[in-house]
Every structure is written in C-alpha cells, then in structure tokens.
C-alpha cells in the first residue's frame, strides 16, 4: 500500500499574500478564465519564483448534475445526456452507456451493430486525439498543428454528420444496437478517410516529433511513474506512457474488439513527450482497427430485440470501456423500474486530473500548462 499522503496536495492557503521579494512563496490563480486551462478549470498555484511548490484544482464550474438527472429519466431518455460529458468524444460516452444498460438488460447487440460501433468509436478516438494534439501544441506555442488537426478532424465530423445528422453530440447508438443503418457509400467514405489521414499524421509528426524546441518543452516534463499512476487510478494514454500496458480493449474486451488485430503502444519515461508519442501511435492503431472493421463488416440486423419500455431486473452493474482519455466506467443501480436508481460515471478526465499536483510539483509554471494539456482533460467530463 503506497503512502497516500504523497498524493495529497498540501497548499496552505489562507496565509496573507506577501510582496514579491520578501516572501519565498507566491500564490497565484490560474483560471477559471484562462486560455490554457481548456475550459473553466481553476488552478491555484503556489510558487517559489517560477517553481511550482504545489497546486490545488478548483473544479465544478461546469457542473450540470448529469448523474442526478439520470435518476429522473428513463434509460432511453438519459442516453443523449451522456454525450454532453466528454463532448469531444461523445460517441465513446454513448457506447459505454449503451453497453452498460445492455449488460443490465442481458441483451447482446448484433454483430453488424458492433462493427458500426467500433468504426465510429475509433474514428471518434482519432477526432479526440486530434483535438488534443492541436490544443496541446498551441499551449506550448506551436500554432500550426491546431489548424492541421482541425482541418482533418472536420472530415471525421462530416462522416458523423452523414451517418446520424449530428457532428459533436452525436447520440449515435441506442440501447441494443444502432438506430441508423449506414448510409450509401459509408464504407467508401471511411476508407478514403483512412487513406487521406495516414499521411496527415506523418505531417503532424514532421512538425513536432523531432522539433528541438518541442523536445525540450516535453522531455522530462510532468513525469509520473507507473506505480503512481496505478495508485492514483490514472488510466488511458497517461498510464500507458508510464509503461503500464493496460488497455480495456485488450484487458476486458467489449464490443467485438477481440476480432481485430492491433497493438497497445506504451512508453517508458512517463513524461509529456512519451504521452505525445503514445497518442500519435494510438491514432495509427485506430486507423488500423477502422480499416479492418470496414473490410469485414457483415450484413445483418443492427438492432437487438429490446423491449419498448425497459425495466431491467433489480441489480447493479459496472461496465467500462476504453475512452480516448482513459477508462470510462458506468455504474448503474436498477430498482426494477423504468428509471435507474443511481448512475455513477467514472470519468477518466476527473481521475487523471488528480495526478496534476504530483506531476507539476517542482516544475516551472510554463510546465503546468504543458501538463494540463498532456493530461487531455475535458471539463465537461470532470465536472459532469
């Protein structure tokens, strides 16, 4: 059992703020209105000059009570709400929720639906990573990748729009499968997108991977060990960059991931650069999965037999998937009625954000921005 106090932030707030020079410590407030906090995150920094002594995250500015809302909605009605948590990876949110309820109802989605789900989810992972790369690079000062990634993310959003009519909060899946059949030319669109985006990823890497300044800004910044990641519950690319080979797609397979051939990229150092490399390689793996899925997508029904009025048996269920940001889990308690008794979401961003204090302690102020970027948080998901 690791020593838990290590992970607590020990800011002693409330002491009078002294002037610059005579005090060793300076407390400044970053956010909630700050261009680099990716939304409305407020970080209280305790500084010694430019060195960070500790941080304290203040969250909740975007709290909408999503979990409470679930208690007053039927299972079907709550489905669109989950899209609003991690709004850059709405498809993954929907997949997790639908599969959790399916598990509760003991329903299995038909194979064709699973294929569509995998394709869309992996495309969404790409879109999420692209958005992460653009904003992360912008925080570190490289403004060009932002426009490149947004241009290419647009192609993914176009596919979403053609498929289900929405670009961001897609509500693509229903409990028991998919509502929409793929449109005419879906496979062709996806295939041409894969061909289109492969060289683009090389392009991003060409701008950054061997860039001296990028290396200096990211190598050795925000280091976290695999053990600390596990102790803090950090998942996703952040965990894998620290050398722990843990991906729910492989560890506890869901949908039809076992049918695909892909690798789990890992890093060794657990620094910002490794996390960047891991995500870039993950984007390529996602393309591989999408390619395989499109090639062998079967014909058949896309919706399993689900009752019109869902009354799952009394019980509780925990189901988690590998969202772009880490393990996204849903814990649903059913009391046998049409509405869930309790829904609890395990959001990856929220859990990963805990590591911020450990990662930036002893680093410089500019690194806080790099680390917030590399944690890839979405405040909609942190606050829910």
């Amino acid at each position, binding site marked *: 059992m690791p020593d838990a106090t290590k992970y607590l932030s020990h800011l002693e707030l409330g002491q009078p703020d002294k*002037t*610059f*020079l005579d005090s060793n410590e300076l407390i400044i407030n970053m956010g909630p209105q700050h261009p680099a906090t990716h939304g409305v995150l407020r970080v209280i920094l305790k500084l010694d000059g430019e060195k960070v002594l500790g941080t304290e995250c203040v969250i909740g500015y975007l709290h909408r009570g999503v979990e409470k809302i679930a208690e007053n909605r039927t299972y079907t009605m709550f489905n669109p709400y989950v899209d609003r948590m991690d709004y850059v990876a709405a498809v993954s949110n929907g997949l997790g929720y639908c599969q959790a309820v399916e598990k509760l109802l003991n329903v299995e989605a038909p194979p064709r639906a699973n294929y569509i789900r995998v394709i869309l989810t992996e495309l969404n992972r790409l879109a999420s990573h692209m958005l992460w790369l653009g904003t992360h690079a912008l925080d570190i000062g490289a403004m060009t990748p932002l426009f490149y990634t947004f241009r290419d993310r647009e192609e993914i959003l176009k596919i979403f729009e053609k498929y289900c009519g929405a670009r961001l909060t897609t509500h693509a899946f229903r409990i028991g499968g998919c509502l929409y059949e793929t449109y005419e030319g879906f496979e062709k669109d996806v295939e041409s997108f894969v061909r289109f985006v492969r060289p683009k990823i090389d392009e991003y890497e060409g701008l950054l991977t061997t860039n001296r300044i990028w290396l200096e800004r990211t190598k050795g910044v925000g280091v976290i060990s695999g053990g600390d990641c596990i102790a803090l519950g950090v998942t996703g690319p952040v965990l894998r960059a620290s050398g722990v080979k843990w991906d729910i797609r492989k560890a506890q397979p869901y949908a039809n991931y076992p049918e695909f051939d892909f690798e789990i990229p890992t890093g060794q150092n657990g620094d910002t650069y490794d996390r960047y490399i891991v995500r870039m390689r993950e984007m390529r793996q996602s393309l591989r999965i999408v390619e395989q899925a499109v090639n062998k997508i079967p014909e058949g029904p896309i919706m399993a037999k689900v009752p019109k009025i869902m009354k799952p048996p009394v019980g509780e269920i925990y189901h988690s998937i590998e969202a772009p940001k880490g393990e996204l889990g849903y814990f649903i308690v059913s009391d046998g009625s049409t509405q869930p008794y309790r829904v609890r979401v395990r959001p990856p961003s929220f859990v990963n954000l805990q590591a911020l204090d450990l990662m930036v302690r002893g680093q410089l102020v500019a690194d806080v921005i790099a680390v917030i970027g590399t944690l890839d948080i979405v405040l909609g998901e942190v606050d829910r």
Partner: protein
Amino acid sequence: MQPVATTFFFYLLAGLALLGGVLVITRKNAVHSALALILTLLALAGLYLMLYAPFVAGVQIILYAGGIMVLFLFVIMLVSIEKAQREEQFNRQWVVGLLAAVALGALFVFVYVKGSALFPERMMLPPESSNTQEIATYLYGDYLFAFEIASLLLLVAIIGAVVMAKKRI
C-alpha cells in the same frame, strides 16, 4: 558632420539635463525619479555628441540608459515602493545637507569666477571620424593595465551582486 545651431542645442540639452536632475531628487515615486534620470542621461549623451565624443555618447546610451537604468527599474519593481512613498521623503538633517551643498556650490562659483582665465579660449577640433579608433588605441595601449583592472572590478561586482541578492546560494 557640421554641428548646427550649437548654442541652441547646448541650452536645450543643458536645460533638459538640469530638469531631469531636479526631478530625480524631488520625486516621491522612485520610478518617476528613474525616468527623470534617464532624461538626464540621454541629454548628456547629446552633449557628448556636441563635444565630438561620439563613442562615449554611444556607450552612455547602451550602458547607462539601456543597462544600468533597466537594472534600477528592475529593483524598484521588486521592492515595494508604496510604503516608501507614504513615508517622510527627506531625512532629519536635510537642512544641514542643503547648506553643505550650497557651500559646495559657492565654492564652485568662486573657482569658476576666479579661475576662468585658466582655461584656454580655443577648443581643439578632434577628428570625429577616428574618435573610436583613437579611444581604442588608448584603451589597449596606455591604459591597458587600468582596462584589465576594470574588468576585474566588473567580475567582483558580478559576484558581489549575486551573493547579495540571492536568497540561498
């Protein structure tokens, strides 16, 4: 370059220099004092140009206005000046100090009135174009030892300043 309107420029620059000097010692706010001192320094650089000393003028601008004064402004920002601004600006012996300064001024007046005949009327017109080279010849020739001593002094000053200002060494 032929100097144009020497008299006018002399009085203009002298006036600016004196104005700056007066402001330096009268302002409450140290930042304003520093700005006034920069005015004086720049006016003096202009006067050096009029005295056919372009190199000294350039050094004055780079080192004084661009270097030393930035250091001053830096330190003024680090130490909080609000408190100093509210306090008494002049010390208790200010009358004595003023009297001493006035006595010194009287001495200057006396010397200049009595001894103005000592200065040659005619001024040399040193060739401006080779000014830098001649100064270099002096610096690295006759004054080489002094030059080395000055570099040593600067080294000592750097170390001293670091030792003084750093919290933990």
